[in-house]
């Protein structure tokens, strides 16, 4: 451990001379977050503090399907996430979106239930305001999720008619009933999204962990550099264990990662008014996330033979996971297949943990912390076995 620390300290000294690490770890994410915040922010909603979206609905169907949809909206409304206001006249409702009285509008067409019954395509129209893209995105995802559940259920119901289990008149209600189920289950995902969306903190958090991917690979990159530059031979020739060398590299990555993240939290709080939540919880999440990302990137980076290859590989993984994890596009459909894929990324779990922390209870972050630590453990073991090959003459 003492030797690992000596090696880590040397690497940190080297890195601090290499200004790129400051740019990657501090300057770039802060600058980008600041720009993003200017473009999308404005509201400056606090993290975790529930954002309420005001929605309108025009129900020209008034059939079993629109009934089911209304029930879904009511369920979400009961959670305090949205407020729904019915409109009788469509132009009035559209005007309300225009002037910002409501954020978005659902229009259920008159033939909705009828078309569903006969297996024809049906559309729920979502009208959003360009000034509140987040709200429209969430509205669209609610409608889409409902529609996709509905489509599956309709298919099943039509098959049931053909085989004589139910009569044609029961299709609409059967389909609507089935369609109503999945969105409720999917609300967990939307919930996390809503609490984080549209806040300075969301962008800083997402970008911080994205940039952390580049910082986290520095240890394994420097290991490949030591081999390229011949100093690895010296480290191996010294009376120290190879595990101390690997430990030193991991330690320096973790330390740089922690320093970068903590700096970002402090700076974004002071400069941008971001509100990350309970410091102890944030620290816990950061720690788990840094471990996970360092383990992941050490594994990925160690698969390469040269520092260049390793850098490319790390870049690809960082960007892919960043996109998948919702760093750049917080909205979209969080309940779709792609939307669920984000939970394969440490990015999403970190953001999820912060959202959970927003509830005010540090215990709520434990699932996210647990997943991050599992990622750290899994990739950590893999990374060490990969690193053992790098630490050789």
């Amino acid at each position: 451990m003492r030797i690992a620390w000596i090696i880590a300290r040397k690497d940190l000294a080297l890195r601090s001379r290499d200004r790129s690490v400051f740019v990657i770890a501090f300057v770039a994410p802060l600058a980008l977050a600041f720009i993003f915040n200017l473009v999308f922010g404005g509201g400056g909603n606090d993290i975790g503090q529930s954002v309420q979206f005001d929605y309108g609905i025009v129900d020209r169907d008034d059939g079993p399907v629109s009934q089911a949809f209304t029930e879904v909206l009511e369920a979400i409304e009961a959670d305090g996430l949205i407020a729904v206001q019915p409109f009788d006249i469509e132009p009035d409702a559209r005007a309300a979106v225009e002037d910002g009285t409501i954020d978005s509008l659902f229009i259920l067409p008159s033939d909705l239930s009828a078309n569903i019954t006969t297996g024809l395509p049906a559309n729920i129209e979502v009208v959003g305001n360009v000034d509140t893209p987040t709200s429209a995105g969430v509205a669209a995802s609610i409608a889409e999720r409902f529609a996709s559940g509905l489509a599956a259920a309709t298919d099943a119901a039509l098959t049931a008619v053909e085989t004589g289990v139910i009569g044609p008149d029961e299709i609409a209600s059967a389909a609507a009933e089935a369609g109503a189920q999945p969105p409720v289950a999917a609300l967990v995902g939307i919930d996390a999204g809503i609490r984080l969306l549209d806040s300075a903190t969301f962008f800083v958090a997402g970008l911080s962990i994205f940039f952390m991917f580049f910082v986290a690979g520095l240890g394994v990159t420097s290991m490949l550099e030591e081999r390229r530059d011949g100093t690895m031979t010296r480290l191996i020739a010294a009376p120290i264990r190879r595990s101390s060398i690997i430990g030193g590299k991991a330690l320096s990555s973790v330390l740089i990662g922690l320093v970068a993240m903590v700096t970002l939290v402090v700076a974004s709080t002071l400069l941008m008014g971001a509100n990350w939540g309970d410091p102890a919880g944030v620290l816990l999440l950061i720690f788990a996330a840094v471990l996970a990302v360092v383990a992941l990137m050490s594994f990925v980076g160690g698969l390469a033979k040269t520092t260049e290859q390793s850098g490319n590989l790390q870049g690809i993984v960082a960007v892919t996971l960043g996109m998948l994890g919702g760093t750049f596009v917080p909205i979209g459909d969080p309940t779709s297949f792609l939307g669920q894929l984000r939970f394969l990324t440490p990015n999403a779990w970190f953001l999820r943990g912060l959202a959970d922390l927003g509830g005010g209870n540090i215990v709520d972050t434990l699932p996210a912390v647990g997943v991050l630590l599992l990622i750290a453990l899994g990739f950590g073991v893999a990374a060490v076995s990969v690193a053992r090959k790098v630490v050789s003459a």
Partner: protein
Amino acid sequence: MTDRPVLEATDLDKRFGDLHAVRGVSFHIDPGETYGLLGPNGAGKTTTIAMVGGLLERDGGQVLIEGEPMTVRTLDPRRKIGLVPQDLAIYPDLTARENLTFFARLYEISGQQLKDRVAKVLEVIGLTDRADDRAGEFSGGMKRRLNIGIGLLHQPRLLILDEPTVGVDPQSRNAILESVEALSSDGIAVLYTTHYMEEAERLATRVGIIDQGEIKAEGTRRQLVQMVGERDRISITANGPLESAVTDLRGMSGVEEAGASDGQITLLVRDASELLAKALETVTNTGASVSSVAVEEPDLEAAFLHLTGKALRD
């Protein structure tokens, strides 16, 4: 101090896939002795050293450092070895002092002792004035000296230098050779690999001639030269189809060995005065143009040519 060897390497063996890089290499080095491992590029010198230093897993054989077995996992014997890699192994972004300090710490040197050792080594390698400059700004020779200095920090019993003068200007080269001589007279054992015959002749108490992974012969300069017998050496510098000239020369009576490399043909003959004219004619007949000729008494290079059938040049 006992009489037991500082290093005893027995039957070292290493394969890289199909390549049998080191084949049953054995040698020992006594305290205060400088052992020269002389051989062309690819002979297996670096691989041998890597096994001696516990860097590389070996496929067979044994290494004892003052009687202690050395493997890739043992740590203690490493304290007795100062290993200077063939390629520069320094951090260009750290200063000379920082480089030395970092490596000294890996050998558990700390506190006042650390400062003293670093200052002492800086003095030995002549970098005291430049101690706080980045190593990356140093000239090639200064980097080489720092590279060697790192190997001296922990006062090893055995200093291993792997071709330390390759790519160095003549002045720095001489400085390096002088410092090796000085270290040796301080009683430190040195394992010195080189493909320069002159360096082996100048520095080494004993020389092992290594080629294709095998030690072909070992002994003092005198012993090795005696193996070759009383032969003269003719060196012909020429341009043209030297390989075919060598083939023709090998067919001449009185020519014992012939080899060519780097525009130079080397011949071992019983009597140079008798053969010189005819040899030159043979070379010219192949279409080569001769630019210079030299005749020398036998030396290590002649021994090498005799033992390996090749000239020992870059």
